[in-house]
């Protein structure tokens, strides 16, 4: 019983992590049709910047500022990327892919150059370091923070996209840039906004991944990228809710499979992916994959 509870709780923690990383990706991929291979790099950067701040001033304030710094770093980098790399390449998706792959390689290398290859330990404030007893299961406090913030992000993004015109503009822009501008809309601004938003989510995800692991290392973000893509596709690119559902599915499946057997744990996610895509030929939201 306690084991089940423990697995579920921590599984949701993993899900939260995946969602944090995937949400930004699904925005950029789903809305702008840009396969952003630099996303992992954004995550990694968010982690390091967050860690640097939190390391300077320990305790809860440091933690909060660290998270904010991570978000800021992610947003800033993404914005710069959009302006300098993505924007000049609209209408040339392949070149965009190549460029983002380039950034995806260069940025982590840069992180290693600046902070070294060894993992940097992120010491958590006391109240986060411990565990919370729940029917005999010791659930690490960090997981609750992750789940909480992930939910907040989910709601925030839904509101933002539901209420604002930006999402609409961007989606239209992907289909027919010329026509959007011909309606008097400056699609570039909307694109920049979405990209920065995705970057911010990535930054937050990075910082939280740092907390989660209790350390940051140059490869962090990129190691999660594959999962992020899986979650995005399962959830239906561009659909925030779908992404959240997919993240939960992947997180729980992986956690239980890991407990069942190592080899199964390794294969579980890919099996899930292939099964869903092939059997239903639809992603979890019922949209054509």
């Amino acid at each position, binding site marked *: 019983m306690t*084991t089940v509870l*423990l*697995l579920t709780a*921590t*599984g949701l*923690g*993993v899900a939260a*992590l995946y969602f944090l990383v995937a949400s930004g990706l699904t925005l950029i991929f789903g809305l702008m049709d840009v396969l952003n291979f630099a996303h992992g790099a954004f995550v990694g950067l968010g982690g390091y910047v967050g860690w640097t701040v939190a390391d300077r001033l320990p305790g809860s304030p440091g933690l909060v500022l660290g998270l904010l710094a991570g978000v800021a770093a992610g947003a800033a980098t993404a914005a710069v990327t959009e302006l300098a790399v993505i924007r000049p390449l609209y209408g040339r998706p392949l070149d965009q892919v190549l460029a983002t792959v380039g950034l995806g390689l260069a940025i982590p290398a840069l992180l*290693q150059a600046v902070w*070294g*290859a*060894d*993992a940097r*330990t*992120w*010491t958590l404030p006391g109240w986060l*370091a*411990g*565990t919370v007893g729940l029917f005999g299961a*010791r659930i*690490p406090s960090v997981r609750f923070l992750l789940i909480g913030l992930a939910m907040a992000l989910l709601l925030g993004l839904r509101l933002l996209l539901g209420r604002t015109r930006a999402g609409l503009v961007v989606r239209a822009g992907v289909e027919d840039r010329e026509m959007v501008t011909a309606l008097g809309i400056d699609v570039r601004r909307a694109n920049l906004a979405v990209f920065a938003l995705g970057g911010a989510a990535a930054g937050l995800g990075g910082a939280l991944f740092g907390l*989660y*692991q*209790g*350390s940051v*290392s*140059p*490869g962090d973000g990129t*190691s*999660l990228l594959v*999962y992020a893509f899986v979650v995005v596709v399962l959830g239906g690119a561009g659909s925030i809710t779908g992404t959240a559902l997919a993240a939960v599915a992947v997180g729980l499946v*992986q*956690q*239980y499979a*890991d*407990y069942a057997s*190592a*080899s199964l*744990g*390794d294969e579980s*996610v890919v099996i899930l992916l292939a099964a869903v895509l092939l059997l239903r030929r639809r992603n979890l939201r019922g949209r054509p994959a």
Partner: protein
Amino acid sequence: AGCASPTGGGAASNAASTGSSVKIGIITAESGPYAPYGEEYLAGLKAGLSYLSNGTDVIDGHKVQLVIDDDADSPATAVADAKDLIGQGVDMIGGTVDSAIALQVAAVAAQNKVLYIAGPAAVDSLDGLNRYTFRSGRESYQDIATAGTFVGDLTGKKVVVLAQDSEFGTANVAGVKAVLGGQGASVSSVLVPLSATDFTPFTAKILAAKPDLLFVAWAGTNATQMWTTLNQQGVLSATKVVTGLANTATYPATGPAGSKIEFLAHYFPGAGGGNAYEAAMTKTVTESGGTVDLFTPDGFTAMQMFAHALEASPTDVSAMIKALEGWSFAGVEGQYTVRAADHALLQPEFEAKLTGSGTSWIPQLVKAVDPNTIAPPVPATPAWSTSGS
């Protein structure tokens, strides 16, 4: 552009050793995740050279020249580098951290009959691989055997190995089964998928197993999280936990768990008890602005072995091999012996514990373990007939 036979590259052969200058090719990681280890190794290597040549780089009348190639942790690059070096007529190659690469380079060395002294790569199968391949570091077996010496009588004791579901992991499990199982312990394992993001499921399994000893063989990146989880879920207080002590940068990774773990150490600064070699190594390394660390001795030892081989002959590889086989010498960690049968490098290892707290840990020597008690078994049949010679 002139014309030549497609094997013309060989024309350069032995050119390297003329003018009594000898090139030693070094292939190791200077970039990528293993870069720190590579740097440690190189630092030790250079320290060794300047110590053995009193700073002149001249050993036994030969000016020694280190040709260092970055393998960037890619077998392809490493093999290309090896062929390149051999093509330049280099007869001695050393280095590399990554066992995968060491095995590939060893194969190339054997094909081309050049001496290869592997670096920190720990894979057991380097022993007895071929007669051209030696090693300057320890191997997994010795690590495990060291752990075995920590607990008294093992008969009936329950030992659990926590490792990743990989070659390294399974090899360690097998090793523990062989070594500690041999001493009467019942060994089981908890394997972690490489893709695992969360370790709670495995701590649950460990606790369920109620082991007397938990042997953690971890090569994964997210060590911090692993230790945190073990600590949070109360594994560390429930059982005796043993693991290998990695390089200084990783000490904080153990987090608050640090003091609850018993470490087996290949080496840590001061483990040698400040013997002449360690002192010399530490001196040169620190003078050149570096710090001594886990794999610095591997470099130093490698240079000792190169020098010894060189004294035997600058070019005749068989002579070098003959000289090295069975050679016993004093070094940074203590007494080393190159076992003739399979070129295993018998050496001492250490038991250590971390004192201090939070982020600043200092390793302290508990005891040094005698090379012979942890020596890997001698192969029943000689690992190689005079094949290839």
